[in-house]
């Protein structure tokens, strides 16, 4: 890896032959930091019992969220599991609506009906937010099918975990996608654990990027703690899919700092292991260092940014909390499109 200041008059960093402008680097950094602080706030709100149910944070995985989004077109489809806050924030959805969803408020991104696990934003081509492990993989393949059908060059970015990759439907999807050359990038967020199960306890082949071999789906492994590498490799993968060569697997090597969900004390990992990732490979610190070295920012700049972002997140949380709960009548909304009024079970009725 080479990190150096660009010689010409535009400031930035060139890594592996790819130039990133200062402006772009700042944007990537700020989004990663925003996600980090947003997740911390969500954790806090959960502790205060303002958020209920299951809440899965993505601290440590921010480079994956942000690097992928940097590489993607806004028209590309994206979908993931229940660990979805970071991805939808990176997509550019309204943070207040996301926080309101976590709080079960009327202005939540799905009106308070989904909560943490079910963030969707159709306008931003973000299709969840899927609570059943592996569920989004065939669905993402279906988005890719539609894209090929319409010949509109949109790629489906279909994200799953290292645990989710063991579901049978994943391989059915690999095969169909390869068979029909569908424009889908299967992203495996390998954060080393599925709940309390380490990768090697659940997978015979732990090099997950190889999981497509028997379906002729190529795979690459990416340092998911390096936002620039994520951006670069994802750009290549998207180009592969967009150009009609069919699906590709991108294995992002990453780590979740927190437990699986808020109720998981994560005692299955040693403190040393967590520390090794957290203090040794943190994606935000890493980019900050690169930017300071390249003279694009100072430590003081980042401190100030952190203060500002924390303030922003507090304001978002406040605004979300100020919203009312959904009106009870919305319970009956959106169950079905074409209601048939005179047949039982009657729409919008108890019985």
């Amino acid at each position: 890896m080479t990190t150096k200041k660009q010689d010409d008059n535009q400031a930035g960093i060139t890594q592996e032959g790819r130039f990133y402008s200062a402006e772009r680097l700042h944007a990537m950094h700020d989004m990663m930091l925003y996600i980090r602080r947003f997740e911390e706030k969500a954790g806090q709100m959960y502790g205060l019992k303002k958020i209920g149910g299951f809440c899965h944070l993505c601290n440590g995985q921010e480079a994956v969220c942000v690097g992928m989004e940097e590489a993607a077109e806004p028209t590309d489809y994206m979908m993931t599991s229940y660990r979805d806050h970071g991805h939808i924030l990176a997509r550019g959805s309204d943070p207040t609506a996301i926080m309101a969803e976590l709080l079960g408020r009327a202005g939540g991104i799905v009106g308070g009906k989904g909560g943490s696990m079910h963030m969707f934003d159709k306008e931003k081509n973000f299709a969840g937010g899927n609570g059943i492990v592996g569920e989004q993989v065939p669905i993402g393949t279906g988005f890719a099918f539609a894209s090929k059908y319409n010949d509109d060059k949109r790629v489906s970015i279909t994200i799953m975990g290292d645990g989710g990759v063991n579901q049978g439907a994943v391989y059915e999807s690999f095969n169909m996608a390869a068979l029909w050359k569908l424009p889908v990038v299967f992203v495996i967020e390998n954060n080393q654990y599925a709940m309390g199960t380490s990768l090697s306890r659940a997978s015979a082949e732990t090099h997950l990027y190889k999981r497509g071999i028997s379906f002729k789906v190529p795979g690459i492994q990416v340092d998911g703690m390096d936002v620039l590498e994520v951006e670069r490799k994802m750009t290549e993968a998207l180009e592969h899919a967009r150009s009609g060569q069919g699906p590709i697997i991108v294995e992002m090597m990453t780590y979740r700092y927190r437990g699986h969900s808020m109720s998981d004390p994560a005692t299955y990992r040693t403190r040393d292991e967590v520390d090794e990732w957290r203090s040794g490979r943190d994606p935000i610190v890493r980019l900050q260092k690169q930017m300071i070295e390249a003279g694009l920012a100072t430590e003081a700049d980042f401190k100030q940014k952190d203060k500002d972002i924390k303030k922003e997140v507090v304001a978002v949380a406040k605004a979300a909390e100020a919203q009312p709960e959904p009106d009870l009548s919305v319970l009956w909304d959106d169950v079905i499109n074409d209601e048939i009024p005179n047949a039982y079970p009657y729409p919008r009725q108890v019985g």
Partner: protein
Amino acid sequence: MAKITYREALNQAMCNEMERDDRVFLMGEEVAEYNGAYKVSQGMLDKFGPRRVIDTPITELGFAGLGVGAAMAGLRPIIEFMTWNFAILAADQIVNAAAKMKYMTGGQYDCPMVFRGAGGAAARVSSQHSQAFENWYANIPGLKVVMPSNPADAKGLLAASIRDNDTVIFIENEINYGDIGEVPEGEYIVPLGKADIKRVGSDVTLVAHSRMTGYALLAAEGLAKQGIDAEVVDPRTIRPLDEATILASVAKTNRAVVIEEGWRFAGIGAEISARIMEKAFDDLDAPVARVTGKDVPMPYAANLEQYALPSVAEIVEAARVVCNRA
């Protein structure tokens, strides 16, 4: 008798049966090293080792089918689904394989096994994680469906289910896992297909299973204050249903309310009320009422979730209506 939790009671049943029969093993996600996602299998890996307490990858269809094969080969699997929501992925193996194996092999093969895990609504986990599936499985010939409502039944029914020679769908309740109750020590069996009268009363019969049994008991207390003496019948086994106990109760009270957490249409209450109509029409002084979950997927927001679920107040109200006291 010792006071233990519902989850400890389930744990005791599995441990006792595994001690008594080497063919019994436990397999599922996070059951071994993590001691169970809901800690039901706490300590079982230490006790029985990795041959018999087995963590799986997240691959429900695969390990459910593996269980079916192991059962056909003579073992006695306990297959844990972290929750029954995820068992939908395994429905083919449960419905097309396990349930039909004996019949379609002309009796050559059996599937003596237990599929177990948490069902029903948990708290604030939204549409995909809060669902009642007992009516799905209760519709299938070849399956038995069992749902304990308290710690003692949890122990006794699970032991009976493991010993049973058929495929048993054993649906626990996440919210009940921490409930404490008196549970007989040592070997304890509650026979399948036997309902239990949880409260004796004379004015109205409340039929409720799983978590709703507790709701019915609370409603009965409320009704008592209003001078209505409710009897609470817990079927405990949904399929096959001990209708004799329900019908005897209705013969005494002449009124019935059937309560379930799941959706009304084609639900358990539909079956039970139909049986009461078919078998005890002349005993009835009022149409059977049903209290069920609202006909919508479960929402996340606290107020919407509460509204979607059946409530004690709704049970009280329904009982008052059938007693002409509304």
